[in-house]
């Protein structure tokens, strides 16, 4: 099968020959057919299985604790439950029709064919090509790896709507949103015949800055605009109930992100190693840059600022993980930390929307910074892995077009998904449930009994 090619790799490592491959989208497929059915390497397979469960660690308990700690005491369980249930739902939908819509055979530039619905025809012997000629991994491993991406992206979106959205609405929204927003965008960016991938030059998105972060951030913004503000926002104090949990979640997200970024090489190789060093360097720079920005604007360098910077850096380096040198990654991380700081600290209060846990401010804004920045740090002249004849201007145009298309697609699709959820579930909890807390009102439990 011709699974995608996160372009950067071909350009970076294959030099001129790889450039040729890009010009001939089917070349990889043809070469694969010519070679006698390759067997998966056990090292690659083991690394990809590890990466897959690392991404699961990002969701549970990573994101659940990160988001849960930012919520109020009375909503802790509802946040954890929404994150967990959304991820579980995404896994089932992925097996059902998600995988085939994103990575199935055939189809068009927007979605693949439905031939692999319910994973029809996939066996333990099925393999998918990686980015190196003749290297494959078991298809089930690839399916699982990509499944966790769909799961975390849906869970991320919920950050803007927590503390007031109905649990049932989350589930309905999740099914519709995955189907009309996530699967098509994943296909467009990553599948061999996907829209952004067939552009010339192809869009650079190593590990899903567009698919996961711009997508979840913009969807979160649209969802919270339609849903409305929490009662009392911004008049009543709504401080995070446990920054300790948010800190623990931040650490788990960072650790898990190595599976997300380095795993996106699909092999245990030098490309994965580059993604790994960048996931350290950019993230470290962003965490410190956020606190520096706080200090410069007359505030104290804060624990939440550090955590937020870490996430902003991870988001920004995602598309650039294997598409940047380590120094470029440090600059990209620092820039993302500072821009996201201003977005959540000044832009959001000014515009007045209630993106409760700043999914748009960090994943949306950080994702856009990362997607555009990838076009810059990719350049060989800046230490990136591009060829010598890299056309930064042309690449930046494609990056911007990809960002723009994703924003529009995510915004329209999210509006539809939210209205479907509203129609079927009413979308928002009753006022007394919101005041009393969703833990009691929606789940019949309290997070803390002491």
């Amino acid at each position, binding site marked *: 099968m011709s699974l995608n090619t996160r372009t950067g790799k071909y350009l970076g490592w294959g030099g001129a020959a790889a450039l040729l491959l890009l010009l001939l989208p089917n070349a990889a497929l043809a070469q694969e057919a010519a070679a006698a059915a390759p067997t998966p390497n056990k090292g690659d397979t083991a690394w990809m299985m590890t990466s897959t469960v690392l991404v699961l660690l990002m969701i549970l308990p990573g994101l659940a604790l990160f988001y849960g700690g930012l919520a109020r005491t009375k909503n802790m369980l509802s946040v954890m439950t929404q994150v967990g249930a959304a991820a579980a739902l995404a896994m089932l939908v992925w097996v059902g029709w998600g995988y085939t819509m994103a990575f199935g055979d055939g189809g068009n530039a927007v979605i693949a064919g439905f031939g692999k619905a319910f994973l029809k025809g996939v066996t333990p012997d099925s393999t998918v090509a990686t980015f190196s000629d003749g290297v494959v991994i078991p298809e089930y491993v690839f399916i699982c790896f990509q499944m966790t991406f769909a799961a975390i992206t849906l869970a991320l979106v919920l950050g803007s709507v927590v503390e007031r959205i109905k649990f049932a609405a989350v589930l309905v929204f999740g099914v519709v949103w995955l189907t009309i927003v996530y699967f098509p965008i994943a296909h467009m960016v990553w599948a061999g015949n996907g829209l952004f991938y067939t552009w010339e030059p192809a869009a650079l998105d190593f590990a899903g800055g567009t698919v996961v972060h711009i997508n979840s951030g913009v969807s979160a913004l649209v969802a919270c605009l339609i849903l409305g503000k929490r009662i009392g926002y*911004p008049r009543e*104090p*709504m*401080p*995070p109930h446990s920054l300790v949990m948010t800190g623990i979640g931040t650490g788990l997200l960072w650790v898990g992100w190595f599976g997300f970024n380095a795993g996106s090489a699909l092999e245990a190789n030098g490309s994965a190693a580059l993604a790994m060093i960048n996931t350290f360097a950019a993230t470290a720079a962003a965490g410190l840059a956020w606190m520096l920005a706080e200090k410069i604007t007359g*505030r*104290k360098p*804060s624990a*939440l*600022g550090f955590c*937020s910077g870490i996430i902003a850096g991870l988001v920004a380096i995602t598309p650039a993980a294997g598409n940047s040198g380590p120094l470029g990654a440090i600059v990209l991380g620092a820039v993302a930390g500072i821009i996201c700081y201003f977005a*959540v*600290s*000044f832009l*959001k*209060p000014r515009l007045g929307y209630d993106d409760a846990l*700043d999914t748009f*401010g960090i994943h949306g804004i950080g994702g856009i910074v990362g997607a555009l920045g990838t076009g810059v740090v990719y350049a060989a002249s800046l230490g990136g892995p591009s060829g010598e004849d890299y056309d930064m201007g042309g690449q930046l145009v494609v990056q911007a077009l990809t960002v723009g298309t994703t924003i529009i697609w995510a915004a329209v699709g999210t509006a539809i998904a939210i209205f479907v959820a509203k129609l079927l579930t009413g979308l928002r909890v009753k006022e007394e449930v919101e005041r009393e807390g969703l833990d009691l009102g929606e789940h019949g439990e309290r997070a803390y009994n002491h």
Partner: protein
Amino acid sequence: MKLIIAIIKPFKLEEVRDALAASGVQGMTISEVRGFGRQKGQTEIYRGAEYTTSFVPKVRIELVVPEGQAAAAVEAIQSTASTGTIGDGKIFVLDVAQAIRIRTGELNDDAI
């Protein structure tokens, strides 16, 4: 008998307790409370949200002492809880009509 209620800074609690014990006080009840007086609250900032907490954490001590011991107990609290800055707290002294020890039924001075 006198009921002494003291609102003090939380970190002064152990010092005050020791001083009261030294003055012969047999027991006390404490609770963690919040309030405001002349001391202003703190400002907390979480990303874009800035909150001024107008209530400051304090510890409230309650103890009942025989008439003759009240002055010494008040003096013990006042001298140890003081830091010389605003927010040191207040001491209130009230008359108590009756005290009963639940286990034995003893009354008043015998009960405290």
